[in-house]
């Protein structure tokens, strides 16, 4: 017997792990579960490991203090060899993890895998999803830049709306009344110790149950889950038409996980690390913060909600959502697993996915904010300036100096909160322009009190020049009537 074997035996006699590991590795699983649809759970686990490994390396450099955090990120990006790549891997790893966990959950839901006897596996999974999102949010805070600062501000403002204990809760969350060094320490502790610790525990139990209860069989229409008979049926299926978990099912997991890691690396190389954006200083007002992609939908929803709906929505909707997810295996714990026989489940999933996609799209593309420096930064197209009269040219100065450009684009530059004004003269007559400027309307504020009569006059003269040469200026009914009279 070789020396190696002796050492192995010495340990094995004391640890006695060979038996359980062999049993776990070789336990039979239904042949049809060795499918490409079953790889997302293990990919999520792989990503968790990647996040832990890259996270530990980042934690060696990162200093969770208000004054240092941004500098250490800058140092990672520019001064440490491959520091940027490490940050990029961790950032993209987080994106992939949220995505893979969501896909895993959708797949489990579609396959009815949450049904008896895997209720607890699902419930732990729901908590794992919440923790993944928690990791994403706390991680976004640790990237202590303007997005982090304002994202935290929104988080604190949501928490502050909890009745009665809102104030103390904010205090607890931020470690004081304001976002400061104490806040960052708290989020560091959450991101590095509390949530990952819980995650590892929950993920361990989650995997343990998968091993003990077996991988969910491929759902077939008509194969109905009954509490009395399911376990026996499953065991029969696994033994009669089963394959050992290693290697028959595992190789696809390994392959997919490796693919995911390569995808993370490619994204990291191509798109680089996330920020850090501008420094997290609330006195810097030249900023339009946005959350990372997994919270963009929430950003869009909150923007569209009427103000009176905000508090009920942010406090009640998440609670209901989580309760629904937790209650799911108890409400629909038995019965059909196949999507062919579960139209409601299919519709729910499609609705959620489509809404999520739409809100995320809106979050990305809606011009939420005026372009605050368009008035001083975006030049006017040359031809507009060239042909103007003195008053019209002065009107162009009014147009810029009074910041109309922040909401209205001309020549493709400027804000998009209001309509582009390239052809406004074909739509509004002089009188209508004056009225619109003075009184506002249609989401535009009234500028009557902020502009002097000469400014309005000059501005409207300039706006009247904004039309393509080949199109007639707008004419209203009274002008038409006057023209008729003149004839």
């Amino acid at each position: 017997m070789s020396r190696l074997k002796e050492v192995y035996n010495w340990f094995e006699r004391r640890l006695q792990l060979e038996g359980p590991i062999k049993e776990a590795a070789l336990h039979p699983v239904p042949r049809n579960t060795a499918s490409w649809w079953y790889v997302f759970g293990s990919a999520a686990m792989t990503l968790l490991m990647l996040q832990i490994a890259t996270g530990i390396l980042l934690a060696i450099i990162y200093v969770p203090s208000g004054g240092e955090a941004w500098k250490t990120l800058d140092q990672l990006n520019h001064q440490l060899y491959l520091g940027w790549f490490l940050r990029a891997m961790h950032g993209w790893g987080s994106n992939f993890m949220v995505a893979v966990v969501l896909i895993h959950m959708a797949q489990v839901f579609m396959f009815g895998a949450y049904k008896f006897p895997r209720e607890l596996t699902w419930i732990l999974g729901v908590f794992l999803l919440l923790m993944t999102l928690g990791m994403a949010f706390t991680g976004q805070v640790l990237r202590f830049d303007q997005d982090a600062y304002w994202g935290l501000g929104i988080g604190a403002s949501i928490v502050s709306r909890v009745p009665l204990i809102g104030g103390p809760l904010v205090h607890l969350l931020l470690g004081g009344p304001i976002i400061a060094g104490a806040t960052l320490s708290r989020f560091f502790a959450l991101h590095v110790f509390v949530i990952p610790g819980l995650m590892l525990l929950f993920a361990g139990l989650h995997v343990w149950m998968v091993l003990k209860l077996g991988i969910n069989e491929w759902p077939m229409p008509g194969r109905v889950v009954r509490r009395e008979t399911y376990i026996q049926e499953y065991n029969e299926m696994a033994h009669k038409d089963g394959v050992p978990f290693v290697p028959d099912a595992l190789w696809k997991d390994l392959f997919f996980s490796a693919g995911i890691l390569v995808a993370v690396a490619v994204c990291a190389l191509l798109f680089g690390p996330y920020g850090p954006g501008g420094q997290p200083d609330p006195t810097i007002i030249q900023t339009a913060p946005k959350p990372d992609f997994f919270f963009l939908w929430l950003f869009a929803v909150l923007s569209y909600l009427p103000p009176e709906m905000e508090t009920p929505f942010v406090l009640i909707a998440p609670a209901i959502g989580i309760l629904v997810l937790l209650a799911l295996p108890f409400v629909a714990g038995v019965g059909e697993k196949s999507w062919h026989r579960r139209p409601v489940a299919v519709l729910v999933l499609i609705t959620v996915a489509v809404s999520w996609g739409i809100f995320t799209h809106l979050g990305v593309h809606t011009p939420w904010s005026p372009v605050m420096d368009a008035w001083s930064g975006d030049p006017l197209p040359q031809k507009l300036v060239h042909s103007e009269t003195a008053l019209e040219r002065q009107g162009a100065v009014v147009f810029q100096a009074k910041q109309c450009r922040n909401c209205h684009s001309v020549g493709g530059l400027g804000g998009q909160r209001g309509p582009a004004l390239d052809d406004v003269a074909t739509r509004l007559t002089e009188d209508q322009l004056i009225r619109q400027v003075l009184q506002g309307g249609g989401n535009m504020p009234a500028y009557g009190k902020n502009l002097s009569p000469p400014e309005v006059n000059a501005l409207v003269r300039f706006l009247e020049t904004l039309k393509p040469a080949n199109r007639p200026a707008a004419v209203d009914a009274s002008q038409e009537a006057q023209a008729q009279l003149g004839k």
Partner: protein
Amino acid sequence: MNARQFLSGAFLLASLVLTAGCERFPGYPHPGSEAMRPDEVTDFSRLYSQNCSACHGADGQYGPAIALANPEYQAIVDDNTLRSVIANGEQGTLMPAFAQSAGGMLTDAQIDALVKGLRQRWARSGYLQGADVPPYKTDKQGDAAHGQQVFQAYCSRCHVTGTQPLNTGGKTKTSSITDGSYLALISDQSLRAIIIAGRPDLGHPDWRNAQPGHAMSDQEVTDLVAWMASQRQQTPGQPYPAQDETGRGKKL
């Protein structure tokens, strides 16, 4: 693809990252790519394009406000005036104050950087040296009556006054430079600057070329400004003048 191929692919990727120099990847964050504090930016091009180009034009020309890429203008205006106008705005015009001390967003260092950049980019050293240039500022009182004659002599070839129409390529506009609204939005000092420096980008001549071969004198410029100032109205910018007897509003 078998496992060996896959592994060698991954190895190749990893060795690429480690050896080929990580700066070559598009994801590599280049120094300075992080957003600076806005009040730490002292790069002229960036400051100019964020704060000035909307009114003064992308390259200091073709903007609705006075052209800065105009060597005549750069020759008559001094650093202190430039600095003070940027910092505190120009009284009687729409030029806003940019200094933090005056409610703007720029620090003194940024304003200095702008003045320096404007000079470096658009001033020509020694330009107009020896020429009889009317000074940028004057304390002299102008003679408005003589100013009107100056207008007739130098300006009326292109500019009109009152309600005379201006023919712009088949279309008639009233482009009066004595329009009440126009005069309400421009100061005497700005009028003086633009008469002297012209708008070469828009084809408007400077003080030497308004009447070819005969430059305007300091006194003539002063008188012209005085005459234009005398044309200012008490309540300018009323689009609908008092109704006439028929009860029908008449536009200017």
